[in-house]
């Protein structure tokens, strides 16, 4: 199989820097997502994973560096632009409004409107109802598009957040710790689902701090440590055991010394150019 993709890079980050109130959160981060690829982003809590993807989705502006979509630099990226460029995200925070109905949650930020900004409520309810049946698997007749999020279980909420991201037909789907708070069974299904994203020919960034979740779905794993890229590992060349060992070393030393891992050394030569550019 080797690396997937057709050589195009739907998203490329170059030398991204980001600080919050003087605290460096991302330092010189460069990253390339190939078309049709599932990229696993791994790192400890606080490594900067969520911040990185919020830069891609236009929520945060980087302090320095460039963002390219399909090889073209995009300036002044914001949430609307990122959406127009085909990026959708399921955020770690879920980004749901508890007291609001399901349909208002699905369409928040981009409602279907009639002239003058009035909502096409009937259409949004209809679509929500459809999505609930087909995609979310909300088969309970008691759940309607008018149900508030307050009454949903953790799995149902996650399902809602994912379906919302999918409904808008994105080419790039970002999932930030989607397994958090899910049962084992729900996690299995989610992993199965991410594999489906790849089958559909879309690209994805899958974030988790658990290597076991990432390894089984990702084509490539990028390790972020304290705001820096600590390594870039195609899952075809590294076993789960090797990666686990590498992760342990990164966590302990903040970096990863290739000379201790022969297999890794060869790989990092081959990947060096790609990872750095």
């Amino acid at each position, binding site marked *: 199989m080797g690396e997937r993709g057709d050589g195009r890079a739907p998203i490329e980050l170059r030398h991204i820097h980001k600080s919050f109130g003087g605290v460096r959160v991302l330092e010189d981060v460069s990253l390339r997502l190939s078309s049709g690829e599932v990229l696993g982003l791994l790192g400890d809590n606080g490594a900067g994973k969520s911040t990185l993807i919020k830069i891609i989705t236009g929520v945060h502006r980087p302090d320095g560096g460039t963002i390219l979509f399909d090889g073209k630099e995009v300036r002044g990226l914001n949430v609307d632009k990122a959406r127009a460029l085909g990026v959708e995200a399921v955020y770690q925070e879920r980004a749901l409004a508890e007291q609001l109905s399901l349909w208002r949650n699905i369409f928040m*930020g981009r409602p279907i409107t009639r002239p003058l900004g009035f909502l096409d409520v009937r259409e949004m309810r209809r679509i929500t109802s459809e999505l609930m049946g087909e995609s979310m698997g909300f088969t309970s007749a*008691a759940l309607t598009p008018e149900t508030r999020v307050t009454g949903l279980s953790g799995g149902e909420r996650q399902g809602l957040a994912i379906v919302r991201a999918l409904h808008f037909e994105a080419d790039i789907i970002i999932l930030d710790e989607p397994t958090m708070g899910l049962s084992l069974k729900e996690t299995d299904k989610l992993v*199965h689902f991410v594999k489906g994203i790849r089958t559909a020919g879309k690209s994805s960034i899958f974030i988790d701090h658990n290597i076991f979740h990432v390894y089984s779905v990702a084509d490539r794993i990028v390790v972020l440590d304290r705001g820096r890229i600590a390594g870039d590992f195609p899952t075809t060349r590294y076993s789960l055991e090797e990666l686990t060992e590498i992760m342990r070393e990164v966590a302990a030393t903040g970096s990863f010394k290739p000379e201790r891992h022969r297999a890794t050394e060869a790989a990092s030569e081959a990947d060096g150019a790609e990872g750095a550019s």
Partner: protein
Amino acid sequence: MSSTMEDVEPAVAPRRRRTLRSFGTTWASQIGITVAFVLLWLVFIVKAPNTFLDTRIYVSFAQTTPYFALIALTLTMVIVSGDIDLSFPSIMALGMVGFIAVERTTGNVELAVLAAIGVGALAGLLNGFFVTVMGIPALVVTIGTQFLFHGLTLVLVNGRSFALVEARDSTAYGLLVGRFVGIPMQFVWLVLAAIGTWLLLYRHRVGLNAHVIGDNPQAAQLMGIPIRRTRTLLFVLTGMAAAFAGVMNSLQVSNFYPAVGSGYLLPALASVFVGGTSVFGGRGTVWGTFIGAFMIGAIRAGIVAMRIADFYVDLIYGAIVLIAISIHAVLQRRFER
């Protein structure tokens, strides 16, 4: 794309309970407050039939309640979005400064009304600026601007009041405080404003955005909702409503005095919360505010008409407000998980 999530089984609660709950969360507390309102009215009718079976008191309510009820409507939207506005009593007067300025120079009352509303909009814009651009909490900002607007009014009119007798012959007078098939125009405007507020809050993207911002500001940010623009717009609308109410009030009494808005702060706020709008944002009810305003507007008159001694009035008033708020607390908690 939809193929896989369908396996994620929802944890299904028993169907009946859930239907009831979802019905309950939507309607229980609004039905509750409506029932309380009807009961209160029945008490007034039984205890003070001479007053409460006479149309005159209804005409009076229809004239005086809209002054604060109008503002309570826009205030409902402000509170839904997680903000608050305490400056509107001062805007009622400040808008009238614009009215006087234009009316005295052009003699055109209609233009003067528009000027007042414009001044109200500017005042709201200033509130919005401090809240969204400077990032200062609305409570703090509007305590400050309440004094600022009041002080500005006093300085601009030298603390004087103005007679508005000549405005009685204008079209604006008839439109704002005249009668329409016997109904005071203040009430007609209130009903129109209530319909408009309902449409904006529940059937317009502004209302959807306001709900999300008030419920979960972080989600609003992540979903690309125009947070500053929406919050500012709601302050502007409140400023406009306040100025409009100030004009109606002044025209009704044919006099402008700088303290025109004093005494309306608490009734307007109480209307919103008695109606069942959440102080924490994310949830509000236009119907509740409407009902709440007439409860607040009628309590004092009702107690007086029942010939209860004066010094009981505040005690009973406070008790009714607390009972109404408790109805919401109990009903909303019961129907939420």
